[in-house]
């Protein structure tokens, strides 16, 4: 039996879904968190019968006629896959709006059970809803629920299963009732009037509005936003998260574990090659990544608190007028903040942006926000090359903002966008973020991170270890520069010379970064543990043989601003909806990362050391060619735009 959850955005569908299935799907206090349908089996606690019950969580919709992409998903599922019963989650905090969608659902001819959700908010407001009257008027069962505290859910599921089994279609008379949508709204108003006693006037200025007037103030809004984001990163990178990671990296994975495992292997006489593979390859590489787990956990914990509070929608309102100037929507900030945790959900969050051009542009720009997987690279490079400086971490975020602004402006000129965008966003009431929820999300993300580290990163590291230890004819090599990895890295290395990066190792690390960005750190750990006794994370450590502080910063920028990992490129592909646009997007990202690293490296070396960096001449040639290409492309786009304008005038 298939149960579908449908309702308005931010009515609590996913919270309810998580409660009855035991899943930990992504929840946030803004409209449009869920962009794809999610399926899972019902938890035992709720499953009374023996039958397998499958629950489908659908993205939120205000109406059966879709406005955004995710609304279309909800409609298509209900119409095409005809679930056995629909649980319509009705936002008790906004009954009259929710019931518009409800009446549309009732007419489809599928059994419907209504969960009158957010019972806690109804009680807090002092409103009263007559459930029996509501149920009589709508012709279907209505159950009062509070999904956050799991109140009423057992009864809800029991009723839904019974209604679905007996195929009791709603007794809501379609012919008698609505012929037009306006009449439908009138009917809804009547139903609400008959069954709800309101004690609160919603049009009065409330506490949320007062908070909004401060946090979305035209002058104070931006500084407040930057302070909040700074606090989030300071706490995760330098605060408790950073401290714990430092311990993990230097002591736990730097000494205790490798020593213990090494001693153990020696005692049981394990083959030295296997020993090296496990200790240097697998443990060294994975350890270099897993050490950053505390840092990433703190980051996700804080982001979850932020998302749960309702603040995200306000940032979107605040940012709209700035983002409009670079061809984005205020809503583009939500993917970017989410993307500071991980680019994949960030890119997926672009789906709530209705305008296709704004959505594509946001999809290209979101991976420029340094994600959690890039934090290990930032942390490693800042501790090795800038041990005394505290500006490196923040500077990366400032650089990211600058890159996004310049890229936005450039994209706007390079391609033809037919933007007719409108900004409209629901502002949910603020709520005190739930620590429990943030904790659950954090553990979920931590599991994902450990899973990634022990699968894809482990495999990749074993491969890297093998490739650096063996030559093409599978002979173990003493000298790394004769290894398979060296020859692969050497293939890339010439392209990196204009950026001032010399050495096949740098090429090899950058390539592994596309599989997962943490691999950049892991690869260095594997490559350098053989070359040196010093720990990777020491100030002035082994990495200094490859970089000056300037080229190190350039290499950091190169890894942050070239295309994201393959998984994120996959997410970009599904959001772009066109191979051509994916190619343009990835090409653009590659161009940005390459050029930026080149400029930092060449100009920085000239300014700080008064000398030319390696590859200065090719860099100048590339810079000239790049400029010519950009000017030419922009001219071409300008001409096209003019032709289109003329054509429009003639019409």
């Amino acid at each position: 039996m298939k149960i579908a959850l449908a309702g308005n955005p931010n009515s609590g569908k996913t919270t309810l879904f998580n409660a009855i299935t035991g899943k930990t799907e992504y929840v946030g206090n803004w409209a449009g968190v869920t962009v794809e349908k999610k399926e899972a089996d019902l938890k035992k606690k709720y499953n009374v019968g023996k039958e397998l019950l499958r629950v489908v969580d659908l993205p939120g919709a205000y109406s059966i006629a879709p406005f955004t992409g995710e609304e279309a998903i909800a409609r298509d599922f209900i119409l095409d896959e005809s679930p056995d019963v629909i649980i319509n989650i009705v936002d008790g905090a906004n009954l009259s709006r929710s019931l518009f969608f409800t009446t549309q659902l009732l007419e489809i001819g599928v059994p419907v059970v209504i969960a009158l959700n957010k019972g806690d908010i109804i009680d807090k407001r002092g409103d009263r809803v007559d459930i029996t009257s509501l149920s009589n008027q709508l012709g279907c069962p209505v159950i009062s629920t509070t999904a956050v505290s799991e109140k009423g859910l057992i009864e809800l599921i029991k009723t839904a299963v019974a209604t679905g089994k007996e195929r009791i279609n709603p007794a809501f008379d379609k012919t008698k009732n609505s012929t037009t949508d306006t009449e439908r709204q009138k009917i809804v108003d009547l139903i609400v009037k008959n069954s709800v006693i309101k004690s609160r006037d919603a049009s009065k200025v409330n506490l949320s509005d007062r908070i909004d007037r401060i946090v979305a103030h035209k002058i104070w809004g931006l500084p407040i936003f930057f302070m909040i984001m700074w606090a989030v990163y300071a706490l995760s990178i330098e605060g408790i998260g950073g401290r714990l990671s430092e311990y993990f990296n230097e002591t736990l994975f730097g000494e205790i574990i490798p020593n213990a495992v090494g001693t153990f292997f020696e005692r049981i006489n394990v083959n030295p090659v296997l020993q090296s593979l496990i200790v240097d390859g697998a443990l060294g590489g994975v350890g270099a990544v897993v050490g950053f787990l505390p840092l990433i956990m703190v980051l996700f914990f804080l982001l979850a608190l932020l998302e749960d509070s309702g603040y995200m929608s306000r940032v979107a309102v605040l940012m709209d007028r700035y983002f409009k100037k670079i061809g984005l929507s205020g809503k583009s900030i939500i993917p970017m903040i989410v993307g500071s945790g991980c680019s994949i959900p960030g890119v997926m969050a672009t789906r709530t942006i209705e305008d296709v051009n704004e959505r594509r542009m946001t999809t290209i720009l979101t991976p420029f926000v340094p994600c959690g997987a890039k934090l290990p690279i930032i942390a490693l490079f800042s501790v090795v090359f800038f041990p005394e400086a505290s500006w490196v971490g923040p500077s990366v975020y400032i650089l990211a903002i600058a890159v996004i602004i310049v890229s936005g402006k450039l994209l706007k000129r390079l391609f033809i966008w037919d933007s007719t965008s409108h900004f409209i966003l629901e502002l949910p009431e603020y709520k005190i973020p739930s620590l429990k929820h943030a904790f659950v999300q954090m553990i979920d993300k931590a599991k994902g991170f450990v899973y990634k580290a022990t699968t894809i990163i482990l495999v990749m590291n074993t491969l890297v270890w093998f490739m650096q230890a063996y030559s093409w004819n599978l002979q173990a090599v003493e000298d790394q520069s004769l290894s398979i990895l060296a020859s692969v890295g050497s293939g890339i290395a010439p392209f990196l010379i204009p950026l001032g990066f010399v050495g096949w190792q740098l090429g090899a690390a950058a390539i592994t970064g596309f599989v997962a960005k943490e691999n950049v750190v892991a690869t260095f750990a594997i490559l350098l543990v053989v070359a040196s006794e010093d720990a990777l994370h020491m100030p002035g450590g082994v990495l200094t043989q490859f970089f000056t502080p300037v080229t190190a910063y350039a290499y950091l920028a190169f890894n942050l601003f070239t295309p994201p990992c393959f998984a994120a490129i996959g997410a970009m592909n599904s959001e772009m909806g066109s191979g051509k646009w994916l190619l343009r997007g990835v090409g653009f990202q590659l161009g940005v990362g390459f050029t930026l690293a080149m400029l930092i490296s060449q100009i920085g070396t000239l300014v700080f050391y008064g000398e030319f960096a390696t590859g200065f001449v090719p860099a100048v040639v590339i810079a000239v060619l790049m400029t010519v290409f950009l000017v030419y492309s922009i001219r071409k786009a300008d001409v096209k735009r003019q032709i289109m304008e003329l054509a429009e005038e003639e019409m």
Partner: protein
Amino acid sequence: MVLAKAKIGFKGSILKVEGKDKIKKFLFSLGCFEGEEITLISILAGNYVINVKDSRYALDETMAKNIILAEQ
């Protein structure tokens, strides 16, 4: 009078919603259509925060110009 010209605290009914069909339909599903009550709560960073039914929405100026209010 258009919403974009209204003063904060304005409470009245909607005379008409103009603009593209798709946007009109969307506003309609939120309960923002002719005859309905609307309140201008605040103007935040150039956006108009309105109350329609029981919820708050932020609209940009372009949209606020498309909502015509009934004169009182």
